[in-house]
């Protein structure tokens, strides 16, 4: 059984294996298919039309399945690897070990945002960006500039306390847990982290930055925590909702998995705490 660990608790060997597996997926072309898929959904999920990956109740199960696909791809390279998660409410500065040269590398330089250290720096030649929205082929970051503060534990708690999973109109205007976690409403958790990292993480091709997976693994863990706190509350809507993935409706692009199949993460992995 896969155990997803806090990135802050990884051993040097675990970091090295994770990085190596990611680089191998990049080298063999599989990584960029994940970037492409994410951007296609980002651009087509709309508040007034069909919406699956984002701004909708299925934001959480869609990303859970997307991360499972990625984790399985990593494990096809190295069976010992699991996705780590980044608790950005705790490891909230640029000095976190997450950003060290032996893991993800740090922020970008002032002139052009180019990441200059770590295994994903453009200068390594190992991390060319092919699925992109502009001409720049190097990984960029600008940690903590577009927005100064990552969410605090108190802000996370305030969102975890929201009792309803999601509410009509089931989009970026909704009240409820999902949209407050996603960040279009309220204190803004998930969206704000994308903005805080900057560079490609602030764009539709955000999986170009490997921190995407660690961010979403923590968002996913928060969903699991919410379910434990609100055992009587389930995924909604339960049926018959136009443009929205209901509980027992299959999700694109897989077309063989429903939110109902993804509610219990323990079928696939557990967390270290």
């Amino acid at each position, binding site marked *: 059984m896969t155990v997803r660990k806090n990135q802050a608790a990884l051993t040097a060997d675990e970091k090295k294996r994770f990085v190596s597996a990611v680089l191998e997926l990049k080298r063999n072309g599989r990584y960029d298919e994940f970037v492409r*898929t994410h951007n296609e959904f980002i651009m087509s999920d709309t508040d007034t039309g069909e919406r699956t990956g984002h701004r909708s109740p299925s934001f959480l199960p869609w990303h859970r399945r997307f991360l499972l696909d990625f984790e399985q791809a990593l494990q096809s390279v190295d069976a010992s690897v699991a996705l780590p998660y980044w608790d950005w409410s705790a490891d909230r500065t640029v000095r976190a070990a997450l950003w060290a040269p032996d893991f993800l590398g740090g922020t970008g330089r002032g002139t052009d945002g180019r990441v200059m250290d770590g295994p994903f720096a453009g200068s390594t030649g190992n991390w060319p960006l092919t699925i992109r*929205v*502009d001409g720049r082929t190097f990984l960029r970051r600008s940690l903590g500039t577009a927005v100064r503060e990552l969410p605090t534990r108190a802000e996370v708690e305030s969102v975890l306390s929201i009792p309803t999973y999601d509410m009509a*109109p089931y989009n970026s205007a909704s009240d409820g847990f999902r949209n407050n976690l996603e960040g279009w409403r309220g204190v803004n958790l998930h969206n704000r982290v994308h903005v805080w990292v900057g560079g490609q993480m602030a764009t539709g091709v955000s999986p170009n930055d490997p921190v995407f997976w660690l961010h979403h693994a923590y968002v996913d863990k928060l969903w699991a925590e919410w379910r434990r706190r609100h055992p009587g509350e389930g995924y909604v809507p339960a049926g018959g909702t136009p443009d929205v993935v209901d509980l027992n409706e299959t999700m694109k692009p897989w077309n063989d998995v429903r939110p109902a199949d993804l509610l219990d993460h323990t079928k696939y992995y557990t967390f270290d705490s």
Partner: protein
Amino acid sequence: MPDMTRRRALTATAALAATAAVTALVAPVASAAGHDHDHPMPMPETFDEVYKGRRIQGRPTTAGTGGHHHEHGGGYEVLVDGVQLHVMRNADGSWISVVSHYAPVAGPRAAARAAVDELQGAPLLPFPTN
């Protein structure tokens, strides 16, 4: 599966018309421009200006133009130096673009300016990216 809506039928037609290669991970079906549900909000004004040395333009589009098949039909088109920038309106009337997707701004002009800021002089690539 729910009944096929008119929009999905149109979408399927558009998808059939698209020549984009289907990758191993199947792309979501994009809607045809102008066939989203009714927008209650009025369409923003046209704009055309030079911002930080780059020409940004915005204009409402009519149904059927654009011909893009990997994005929603926004009904409004933004260009940076003549290259289309994918933009989207949120339910509350705020806007985002593909280069600043998680940070809503007031309107399409603000989204275009945010894109110029983000690009730092780099050319925008036509979407869908490849």
